Structures are given as C-alpha cells and as structure tokens.
C-alpha cells in the first residue's frame, strides 16, 4: 500500500454533476487534480482507459455479523467483500449478538472497521433495546457516538405506539429511522411470497400485505411526526406506489431496494433451494417491474444489498428452518446493471451519492470527483464479463443466489481514503 500519489488515466468520470473524460490524480487521501492529460511526475500511473470512475458505493444495508455470528461473516471479511464490490462505506445492521444498542457495541464495530481499514464501517443502532420491540435505545447518546441510522432490521417494530414515540423522540435529533416493514402476525412460519407459486409448492406464504401495512403505517406516522423515515428493502408493487404518493405529499421519506428484488422471482423457490429464501421474500414479476420502475423514477432512492451471510450448514437445513438472507456486496453493481434500464449516472447515484446522503455520510462519500474532495472512488470496468463462483467471492459465506450466473461489469479498483484497497479485482489486505 502506498501513500504516494497515483494517477488514474483515461477513464470516464461520472458523479452527480455529470459525465466527462479525464485523468484523476490522488494524493494524501484526496483528489488533487482532475483534468485532461495530467502529467504528474512521480505518481504511479494506472491505466483505466475504458473504465468508469465514480464516487465509491455506499451500502445502506449490510450485515457484518460481528459481534456474535462470526462463523458467517466478520467485519474484516465483510469489509473485504464490500471493497471488492466497489463500496467505500457500509452501514452495519444492528442485529448482531449483542445487539448494536449501546455505545460499547457501536464503538467496538466502529473501531474494528477502522482497524481493518478496507472501507468506512458505520454501525447503525437499534431502535429498541435488544431489538425486542419494547424500550427505546438511547438515541441521543448513540447519535453522539456517530450513529445516524436507527433500525430494528431483521424484524419490524410491531407496536405502532412505540414506533410513534420513536419518531417523535428522534425527530429532534439528526437521525433517520429505518424500518424493516413486516407485520409479523401475517408472516408466522412464512417461507416464501404468498401467491400462485407457494400454493403449488405447499410452502407457508408471506403476503405482500404484511409489508404494505407497515409501509402504510410508517408513512402515516411520518406524516404525523415529521420524523425522517427510511424504508428498507421494498419488495412489492403496492409498497412502491405508497411511497410514490407519500413523496408526492412531500413527506421526508426515503426508500431502498435490493439487487435480488429487481432480478429474481419467487419461482426460484420451486427447486427448494434455501439460497433463495430471503426476507422480504422474492416476489412476482409484476412486483419486480414495479420496483424497477420505482428506482427509475426516483421513488426508490437507493440500491442496498441487504448482504446477509449465513454459514453453509445453516442453509443446509430444511426451508422452514433455514435462515433467510443472501449475500450481495460483490455482485450488486453487475446485477443492477443487467436489470435496470437507466443511465450510468442514475444507477451510480442509487449506489453512491443518494445512499450517502440518507446515511449522513455525504461529507466523505458520494462526493463529486473534484480537487480537494476525499478520495473514495470506484473504478469500474463496464464490459468485463465474469461468472459468479461462490467460492471465489470474498465473503465468509457463499449463499449467493447468483451462483453460476454470467454477469457484465466488474469493479477493477477501489480507492478508500486515497488508498488502493482493491487493485485489479484483488483486495490488497
């Protein structure tokens, strides 16, 4: 690793200001010059002709599993997967063991992320103690420790009264309340989307309504309280429509969708492969099309991976016992490119500067590619073709639903705080 300067030569630069050709000079953790044909003696010259340079990706939804479930993933292996996927920042979900509901645990995750040094690991805090849905965590204290996103992800906050208080209390702080929308009374024992496919397969169904009811509830609570609300992993057509209307009403609501909810339908479960069990479940083609449309028209602000590693033996269990979730950091950009009909700038915005703003990371991530800005960048080869081999992915777990799929676009280099943490598709630590 080098602290000396590097010159990225010949790429297309895309950020929220637009698209242009140029060279980028990086030194001392910052972008120091951006222009055509930079001549920088002494800098390492990296030829990136044909590539795209963009602000590094920001994942609003990563399960790093540490502390507590390090058999599935660690902050180190998860950070490496993130860097290889082009991410320079990830928001770590709080459903660790112990839960990220205290300053001690938050500090641990943060410190460990810094030690690893492959990307910016930003722990979220849980909304309720132990994610038990009963008592609020100390929002202000956790916010002071750097927490911006609060969520009980893994499950939704079931009690509408409690959620109302969380929003009222949180409104005064500079935080966002992120909801995993699922009314659990409607999803007991559920394994897959409730519809035609589950009726044939004899698997307990997960109605779209379970998500939509909570989306609706939280939109109305947002209207009542004025708190900033982020809706995690939207998966149904009606959820997208509800958010579209809420935004039209001017409510401070944002939303995300995952790569798998824009690419895979519930019919994947017809082979009973536990890799396709996920929460919320894979839905129908009509839902996929609505979620894609939501991303295209901006109703859904961001793409988030919901990277959810599980050890092999956990996924070897029967479908009803196997834990839901799939890994996604290393495949996200390529899957989205294949399934979204949008410009590179729009797509990269959903991967980088828009989630950066939601997570309160827009001081260092998702920045324009300009002199003086922090050098958190991804270099993407848009035409590289590759086949997903779970054993070649860097996550500690291999539960990718995209196994053996042929994808186009791959991260070539990732630059985190001015350092080349991924070079030619290989993590540097």
């Amino acid at each position, binding site marked *: 690793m080098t602290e000396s300067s590097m010159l990225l030569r010949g790429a297309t630069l895309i950020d929220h200001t637009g698209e242009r050709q140029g060279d980028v000079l990086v030194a001392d953790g910052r972008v120091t010059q951006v222009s055509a044909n930079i001549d920088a003696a002494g800098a390492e010259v990296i030829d990136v002709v044909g590539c795209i340079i963009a602000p590094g990706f920001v994942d609003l939804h990563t399960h790093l599993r540490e502390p507590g479930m390090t058999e599935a993933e660690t902050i180190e292996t998860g950070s490496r997967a993130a860097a290889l996927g082009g991410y320079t920042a990830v928001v770590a979900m709080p459903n660790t063991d112990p839960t990220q509901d205290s300053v001690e645990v938050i500090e641990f995750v943060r410190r460990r992320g810094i030690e690893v040094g492959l990307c910016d690991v930003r722990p979220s805090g849980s909304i309720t103690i132990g994610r038990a849905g009963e008592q609020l965590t100390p929002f202000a204290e956790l916010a002071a420790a750097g927490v911006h996103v609060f969520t009980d992800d893994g499950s939704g906050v079931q009690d509408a009264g409690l959620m109302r208080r969380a929003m009222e209390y949180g409104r005064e702080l500079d935080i966002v309340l992120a909801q995993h929308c699922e009314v659990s009374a409607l999803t007991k024992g559920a394994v897959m989307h409730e519809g035609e496919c589950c009726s*044939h397969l004899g698997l307990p169904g997960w109605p779209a309504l379970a998500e939509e009811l909570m989306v609706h509830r939280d939109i109305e609570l947002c209207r009542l309280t004025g708190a900033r609300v982020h809706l995690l992993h939207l998966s149904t057509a009606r959820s997208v429509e509800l958010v579209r209307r809420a935004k039209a009403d001017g409510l401070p609501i944002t939303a995300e969708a995952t790569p798998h909810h824009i690419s895979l339908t519930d019919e994947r479960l017809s082979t009973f492969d536990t890799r396709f069990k996920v929460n919320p479940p894979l839905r129908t083609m009509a839902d996929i099309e609505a979620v894609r449309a939501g991303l295209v028209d901006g109703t859904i602000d961001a793409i988030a991976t919901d990277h959810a590693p599980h050890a092999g033996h956990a996924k070897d*269990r*029967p*479908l009803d016992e196997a834990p839901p979730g799939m890994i996604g950091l290393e495949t996200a950009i390529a899957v989205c490119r294949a399934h979204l009909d949008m410009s590179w700038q729009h797509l990269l915005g959903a991967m980088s500067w828009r989630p950066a703003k939601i997570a309160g990371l827009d001081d260092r991530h998702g920045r324009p590619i300009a002199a003086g800005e922090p050098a958190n960048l991804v270099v993407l080869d848009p035409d590289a073709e590759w086949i997903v081999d779970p054993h070649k992915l860097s996550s500690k777990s291999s539960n990718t639903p995209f196994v053996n799929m042929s994808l186009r676009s791959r991260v070539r280099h990732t630059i985190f705080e001015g350092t080349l943490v991924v070079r030619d598709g290989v993590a540097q630590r």
Partner: protein
Amino acid sequence: MAKHFRSIDEAGRDHVIRLLNLTDHMAEVNRRLHPKVPALRGRTVCNLFFEDSTRTRLSFDLAARRLSADTLTFTAASSSVNKGESLRDTVETLSAMGVDAFVVRHRSSGVPWQIEHWTDAAIVNAGDGWHAHPTQALLDAYTIMQRIGRSTDLDGLEVAIVGDIRHSRVARSTTEVLRLLGARVVHVAPATLLPPHPIAEQIGDLDEVIDRVDVLYMLRMQRERMDSALVPAGVEYVERFALTAERARRLRSDALLMHPGPMNRGVEMLVDPSEVPQSAILDQVTNGISARMAVLFDLLGSGTGLEDQ
C-alpha cells in the same frame, strides 16, 4: 429413466402412466399365494422418516420386502436428529452404508429435493410438508381406475376433495394426478383452508356437489386448525364439511368414497365407512402396497433397453 419420484408434476404424464401399469403388475403379485418376487434382491431401501407416519412407513416397508429388497428404517424419534445431527449428516452417513433408495418423509416441503445433493441414491418422496405425497396420488388414481374399470384415463370424471386443502400434500398430489388423467377436480373447503391461490376449482359448500360427484375424497382434518383459528371452534366445521350419515345417503350409488387415512372420526367422518358401500378406503390401503412396489421397482429394478428374445 427417472432417477427419483418426488412429485407428480416432476414425474410427468409418461412416467405416471408407466407407474400405473406397473402398479397393475404388482397388484397381480400381491394377489398370489406367496406375494413375493426376487426383483430387487440385493438392493437396499432406507426409510428415512423425520416425521412419524406408521402407516406410510409400513406400506413402503412391505412393498420393498415383497420385491426382496433389504430395508432399513430411520425414524427421527429414535435417532441422532434429536442430538443435533443435521439432515445433511444423516443422509451422507446412511448413504455411505450403501443405500440404493431413500424413502423420505419430512414435515418440511422440499426436503426430497434438498437431499439430492448429498446422495447418489434414488429418492422417493413419502410426503414433504404440505407439498407432495406422490405415492398416495398414484394409489388413489389406481384405486379409482380399478373401481370404475378404466385403464388409461379418467376423462369426464368429477372428483371433490373436501377439507384442509391448504395444509394437505395429499390434496396437492392427488389433484395433480387426477387432472393429468383427465378428471375434473373441485376443492371443497372454507377459504381459510384453501391455498392462497387456487390450484383447482373451489367450492365452499359440500352440499352443492355431494349428489353429483363420481368420487368424494375426504381429507383428514386436524383439530389444531381449530386451535389456530383457521376455522371456528366447536361443531361448525363438522356441520358444514363433515361426511354425515345424511350426506353419505346422498352419494350416487356408483360413486366412490375415499380417504387417505388415518381418519378422524367425529371430525370429518361422522359415518363408519364400513357401512358406506361406496367406500374404497380399504382398497386404497391395499393398492398402496402395489403402487409403492411399482415406484421402487421402476427406480431400482427396471430399465429401458433390449427385449431379449
């Protein structure tokens, strides 16, 4: 040649027809004084029952023995599953003992598909979750054909399946096989016991169809469905959906009464089937042996190829 027999849909029409023909073959064996043939001598069939079902297990066991196969039985209750051994370890361990076919019963849908990655043995689904019970479907189809005297199809026949369709692997598989043979299947149940998306025509009133159907197929109704509020507590279900003596009298004289067993008397069956002349329920049990012999022989014993002169 099929490697497994896990669902009617997966098997497809040709395979099902072949199995029905073989079932007829096996029925002849079972009518003999010494109903045993050496067809599967040296083969090992392992009953892998993670969920208890004494009847199905005994039926498969007898079927394998009548074909002279060696049988092993593994039941969850008496096994290391309770000591935390995983499904995968169990299958891999038994496979290493030299099993040619696993007969699998599990309370979770899909297990017969999941385990195919851990063994080279043939897999027979003896019931997975709410999903499929294809040997039951086969014996049901065979029983109907035998009783009404058809050998290749069930065109024009109307079959009403009554009861807890939603949670029933029997309903799913039997519906699939009857439809594949040309029968018209109607599901009779309250909406809470129907699948979220219809898999056959649905009717909410048993009295609407009872006088006209060719086959009345009653499903077992588990009392816990009342505890979980899928149907009202008390006698309402019985009044609306059970086979009462009065309803039994309304069956056509040439109709068939069927039930996959075990019966829940006083819940879905308020009559003694032995007093209903239309009952084919014991035929189902008898034919179950033949159907299971057919499936095992098809996977382990027969093959395509040269007709020796």
